[in-house]
């Protein structure tokens, strides 16, 4: 009883913004006609960029490997359409900086012909490592937005003996409904994917947390999970940021992930519902991650809804498909709270892109920031229990160490503090700025240390070379003298022998 009431108790943290999910969430899923070109960035995940293994002019089929994973934490990239590689060059990154990112361009032939796939007939008879290997091969990454390579997480979960898998169907960001749609339309894929992940990590149960503002998704998932008692559907209160892993873990299990620790260390692993569906496709169908559902929403969109499309589609093509009622005042990739502002619409959809928001002028309005009045609203809203006002004051004075003493690194950049701030202070930007500066300082320090090591190594090398030269010269000299002495002796003895013969 206590446990159940705990589930339905509204948490004290977080905010409850108006969700704007409907009518987009209720519109039927639409499929985008194959675009003429796709741009597949080599880095769509956390970790090392993938390395292209195709050349310009090469013909590729849908699902064909075009860039392989590089390093321990990385993910491969596959062709999302069939066609011809026409360019390996730069494209604007789906990143607030708008810097270039290396990408492979494919001119689609319109046939959408899949490469021969290798589905696993009975995946539950396979070894857990085999599921992990298949997920890695398919390039599956966390689709909730973090884009961490899933296979790496599976291996970590297995190593740390995780007992519960938490399936994240929170989708707490306003405007977005791609996870809602996947749970309504393909619940059996999500459940099967969750069971495959449980097999891969050796978990005994899966808790599916779904915010209670998605009753249709809850009903569909309950129906699909009926015959699997180990998969439990758990509605959670609609509260932003419920979809953040630490908050969802706490709501579902009552466990708090310690600062500086990972979720696996408290015996749980969190995976998004869309990630589960891609694991299902990777294992059961052998399909790599080349398509996803993207929410297109916002006041400037004529027909908002969810679109199923190949990765690498340019955002302008998607907006052409849904239509615009006006020129968007702002474009955002992801949700309004944590999404990435985009400079223009010639940016490709990547694996972690859950939505495109085209805001009209009213939605895009950013009020001018005023001074902090120390009302403390931000401290009440912060889901991590931090003091945003204290941190921001220190960062404003360039005192990053001081901000860190208030546990800046525990900030999840959810934006609750900035949302409730009556003075409209862009608190999250302060925190992102400080984190970036501290990271840069750390990197400079490492660089300086490395330079020092290199300089010392060079000095040692030159000393060694000089010593070796001297030794070699001394040796040569000794050899020369020895040879001279020997030659003198030989001439002496030979003189004696000749004498002997003559006698």
């Amino acid at each position, binding site marked *: 009883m206590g446990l159940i009431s705990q589930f339905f108790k509204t948490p004290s943290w977080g905010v409850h913004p108006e969700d704007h999910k409907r009518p987009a969430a209720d519109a039927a899923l639409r499929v985008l006609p194959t675009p003429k070109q796709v741009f597949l960035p080599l880095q769509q995940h956390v970790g090392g960029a993938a390395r292209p293994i195709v050349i310009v002019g090469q013909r590729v089929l849908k699902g064909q490997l075009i860039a392989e994973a590089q390093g321990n934490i990385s993910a491969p990239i596959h062709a999302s359409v069939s066609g011809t590689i026409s360019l390996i060059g730069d494209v604007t990154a789906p990143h607030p900086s708008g810097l270039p990112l290396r990408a492979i361009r494919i001119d689609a032939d319109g046939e959408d012909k899949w490469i021969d796939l290798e589905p696993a007939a009975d995946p539950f008879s396979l070894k857990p490592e085999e599921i992990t290997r298949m997920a890695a091969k398919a390039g599956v990454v966390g689709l909730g937005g973090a884009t961490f390579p899933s296979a790496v997480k599976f291996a970590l979960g297995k190593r740390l003996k995780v007992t519960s898998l938490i399936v994240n169907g929170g989708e707490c960001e306003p405007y977005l409904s791609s996870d809602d749609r996947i749970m309504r339309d393909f619940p059996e894929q999500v459940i099967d994917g969750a069971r495959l992940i449980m097999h891969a990590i050796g978990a005994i149960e899966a808790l599916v947390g779904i915010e209670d503002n998605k009753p249709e998704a809850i009903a569909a998932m309950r129906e699909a999970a009926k015959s699997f008692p180990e998969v439990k559907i758990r509605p959670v209160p609609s509260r932003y940021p419920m979809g953040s892993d630490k908050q969802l873990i706490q709501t579902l299990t009552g466990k708090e992930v310690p600062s500086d620790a990972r979720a696996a260390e408290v015996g749980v692993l969190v995976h998004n519902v869309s990630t589960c569906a891609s694991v299902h496709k990777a294992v059961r169908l052998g399909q790599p991650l080349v398509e996803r559902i993207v929410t297109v929403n916002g006041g400037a969109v004529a027909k908002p809804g969810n679109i199923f499309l190949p990765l690498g589609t340019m955002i302008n093509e998607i907006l052409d498909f849904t239509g615009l009622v006006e020129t968007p005042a702002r474009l955002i990739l992801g949700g309004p709270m944590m999404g990435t502002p985009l400079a223009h619409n010639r940016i490709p959809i990547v694996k972690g892109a859950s939505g495109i928001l085209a805001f009209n002028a009213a939605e895009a309005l950013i009020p001018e920031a005023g001074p902090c009045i120390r009302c403390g609203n931000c401290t009440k809203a912060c889901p991590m229990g931090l003091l945003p006002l204290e941190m921001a004051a220190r960062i404003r004075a360039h005192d990053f160490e001081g901000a860190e003493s208030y546990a800046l690194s525990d900030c999840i950049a959810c934006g609750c503090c900035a949302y409730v701030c009556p003075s409209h202070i862009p608190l999250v930007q302060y925190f992102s700025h400080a984190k970036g500066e501290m990271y840069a300082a750390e990197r400079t320090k490492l660089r300086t240390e490395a330079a020092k090591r290199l300089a010392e190594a*060079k000095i040692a090398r030159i000393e060694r070379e000089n010593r070796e030269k001297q030794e070699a010269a001394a040796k040569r000299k000794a050899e020369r003298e020895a040879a001279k002495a020997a030659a003198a002796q030989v001439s002496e003895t030979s003189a004696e022998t000749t004498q002997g013969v003559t006698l």
Partner: protein
Amino acid sequence: MLFSVGSLALMGLALGSLLGAAARYLAVAENPIEAELQAMLPGSQCGQCGYVGCAQAAVALAKGEAPVTLCPPGGKATVEALAAKLGVKVDLSTVSDDGPRIAFVSEEICVGCCRCSKVCPTDAIIGAAKQIHNVIREACTGCSGCIDVCPTEALKMNPIPVTLQHWTWPSPSSAHN
């Protein structure tokens, strides 16, 4: 009243003389801060500060003869560390940190003379005789020692290009002011 004043004064006198004696008899001949300061400097002995090497720069810093902003390759991080160690206040915004610069080789001009790789303190330049040389970005400290020795002016100092990995959010306060 008198008793407490007297006892405190006595204690002060006794402890003070103890400290004075300790300072005299336990004094360390070498200034230990020099070694600590030297450890903070890049150690590439590039000479951009005007001293022969990092050790000499550390001595000057310890004596207070050199400003903490003396080391261009160290950047803001080194300035901050030095200022904290020496207990001096420094206005970081005045530190001209136009981003670290590193050497680049124009491949079409390089004749492969190997002079630059010989002077590079961190072995950041690779190449062999009559082969085009190149700079390993990660290892270059930006000391610009190679620039002067190049006979064909194939080497120049460029800012490190900003990449997605290096980019950081600007401070919102800079936008306000």
